């Protein structure tokens, strides 16, 4: 109903690629705290970074369901951190340039991003402004043909090793009407980053980024000055939908992994998958995962058809990430002591899941947004 034969073939080839090029390295990437740079070129060569991008930039201009498949499959590699940096590039950074950037900017960044020569990250959150985007303080002051940027960003996925930063900066007044988006190259003088030590998402080089009198060419402005807030609000739908798809896929993965374990593991003389209380727990979770999956596909289809699905994306993100935490908690429990050991992947899945309810707008922010639309009947 949502996928055609071509989609299934695409999923298979992507899966085969990930099995070959990502899975053997994932433990090492988790350990070192970042994804090897070489993966970008490989992803680019296979066309996986340009699915949703125009042919003139090297993309394949395919429908959105292919991107949905990408988000799902990168989430089945037992590493939220790996999925995080890929989504952060393809779903969070590149879309701003594609949707709102001028031709010059698109030609420069999209062509290289699609090829996998470079990749980006998105920097909105600051030490003092997370979900209240309107409160950001990083300043960009126009000086001739440049902006001089000062400030800092934090919790930036892929923020240490990525090549460019799509940064929300203040170019105007206080509040939402004074925000712009700038593409800031990593190599510019005054850009520095510090890797943050995190509870999970270990393969992501999540960073605090500092801008100290960074001279950014004015040509790197995305779209119009002071329109950044609106651009961000528009792309949030995609970010949330992407997260919903990622968390749903890792839930499916966790259940499959757990069922395998439950089949092999015996207790009191029989495989533990014969114990009714565990069976019912799995049945309940599998039902909820199936529900959110179908909901996600419905939302993805509508999103792909160009519909404004602000509310539905918020709902999908809320449901999927909340479910993610429950699924991981319950699945880990089915492993008993083994679940607490790093030999089994469920420990990593458990800690990686936890950020879902926080990043991309916390569950509380999702509820605020949904409440405005359902209780106050506000439309976006």
């Amino acid at each position, binding site marked *: 109903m949502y996928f055609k034969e071509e989609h299934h073939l695409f999923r298979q080839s992507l899966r085969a690629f990930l099995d070959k090029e990502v899975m053997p390295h994932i433990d090492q990437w988790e350990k070192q705290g970042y994804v090897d740079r070489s993966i970008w070129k490989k992803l680019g060569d296979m066309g996986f970074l340009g699915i949703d991008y125009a042919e003139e930039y090297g993309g394949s201009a395919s429908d959105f369901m292919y991107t949905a498949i990408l988000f799902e499959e990168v989430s089945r590699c037992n590493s939220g951190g790996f999925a995080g940096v890929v989504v952060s590039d393809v779903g969070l950074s590149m879309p701003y340039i594609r949707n709102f950037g001028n031709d010059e900017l698109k030609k420069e960044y999209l062509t290289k991003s699609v090829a996998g020569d470079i990749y980006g990250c998105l920097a909105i959150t600051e030490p003092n402004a997370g979900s209240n985007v309107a409160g950001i303080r990083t300043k960009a002051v126009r000086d001739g043909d440049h902006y001089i940027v000062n400030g800092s960003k934090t919790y930036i996925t892929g923020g240490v090793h990525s090549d460019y930063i799509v940064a929300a900066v203040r170019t105007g007044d206080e509040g939402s009407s004074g925000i712009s988006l700038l593409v800031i190259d990593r190599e510019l003088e005054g850009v520095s980053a510090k890797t943050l030590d995190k509870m999970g998402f270990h393969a992501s080089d999540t960073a605090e980024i500092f801008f100290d009198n960074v001279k950014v060419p004015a040509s790197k402005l995305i779209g119009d000055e002071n329109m950044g807030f609106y651009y961000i609000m528009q792309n949030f739908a995609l970010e949330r939908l992407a997260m919903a798809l990622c968390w749903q896929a890792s839930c499916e993965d966790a259940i499959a992994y757990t069922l395998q374990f439950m089949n092999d593991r015996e207790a009191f003389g029989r495989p533990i998958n014969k114990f009714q209380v565990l069976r019912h727990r799995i049945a309940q979770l599998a039902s909820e995962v199936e529900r959110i999956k179908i909901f996600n596909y419905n939302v993805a289809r509508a999103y792909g058809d160009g519909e404004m699905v602000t509310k539905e994306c918020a709902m999908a993100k*809320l449901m999927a990430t909340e479910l993610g935490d429950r699924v991981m908690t319950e699945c880990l429990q089915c492993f008993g002591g083994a679940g607490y050991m790093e030999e089994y992947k469920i420990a990593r899945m458990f800690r990686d899941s936890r950020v879902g309810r926080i990043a991309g707008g916390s569950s509380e922010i999702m509820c605020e947004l949904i409440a405005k639309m359902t209780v106050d009947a506000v439309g976006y």
Partner: protein
Amino acid sequence: MKSYYFSEEHEMFRQSIKDFLKKELLPNIDQWEEERQIPREFWRKFGEMGYFGLEFPEEYGGSDLDFFYSVVMIEEISKCFSGGFAILPMVQSYMSSPYIVQHGSDALKAKYMPKIISGEAICCIGISEPGAGSDAMNIQTQAVRDGDHYVVNGAKTFITNAVYGDIVVAVVKTNPEAGANGVSLLVIDLNSEGVSRRKLKKLGWHASDTAELNFDDVRVPAENLIGEEGFGFYYLMGGLQLERLVAGISGVAACDAAIEYSLQYMSERKAFGRPISKFQVLRHRVAQMSAEIEATRYFVYHCCKMHDAGEYIVKECSMAKLLATEMTNDVATKCLQFFGGYGFMEDYKMARMFRDSRIGTIGGGTSEIMREIIAKMVIDEQEYTKA
């Protein structure tokens, strides 16, 4: 979100049934709940409108429409804050008579379907017995062949529509030694000699007549056997999927109605100087429920689409029923809370919705049975094929 499931024609049909319910049902439903009975005259009108026969063949008076017309009808009757009302058409057209349409002989269809579709006859499904509910294989009611008749003895219970109804599709044992292969379906006229009915008092669904049936040497013409002898269990397994899907559709719609009704109240009711719809904790509760309802809705529509395409979706229907009915209980509990003391009073419709929703996780296979089925399919990779 744009609908991928309903056409303009479906929506026009929705409006017509809404108008009908507003005119014929809503002004009377409180009284009918009180009287614990809905007049036959109403059901005749319901039948005249074609609502009992949406999916059924035209030759028996049906409209032969796609399943989404039924979805619309089930949704709209489920938004009237009377589960007891809504269950009658659901049992009539989706849980009992489909066995006749799908597996019955032409003669049997010609005998009963026109009356069922017109609303002249009310039909019920007799599965549960005092000693056997979800384990349908262990039913005790026996039908012994005697010439051109079956002689039926036994009892059925919790039978919706059976006090004032006319016919029951009864699950009987025609061969007690054969286990699942000894089960058959018989259409029994409830006015036959030897049938006695006792009206049961219930926690909710007050507008619905629920009966305990006793069969004492009831002579049923052999032609009233549905399909083949010994195949009843398999027919039943097929039919239960639709029953569960319908429960899912109905549950989501009831939640919609509860949220809408609650939001109306919350915008009018003030506390501490502002409408209670401004309190964050209540707003988030509504948001959380709305998200769950929306997700469940699309899951149910997805299942309906598969069902309409003729797929046999045991796992999905079980999941839909489990998720939707559990959610309805939760939504009814939380929405009643928004009303404070008024929620406990019969002046507001929440009390009724609360008690009516409680049957959802029990009837048509309990949540525990749904999880058993899902577990078999998900964990043991068991598959089911249509009879």
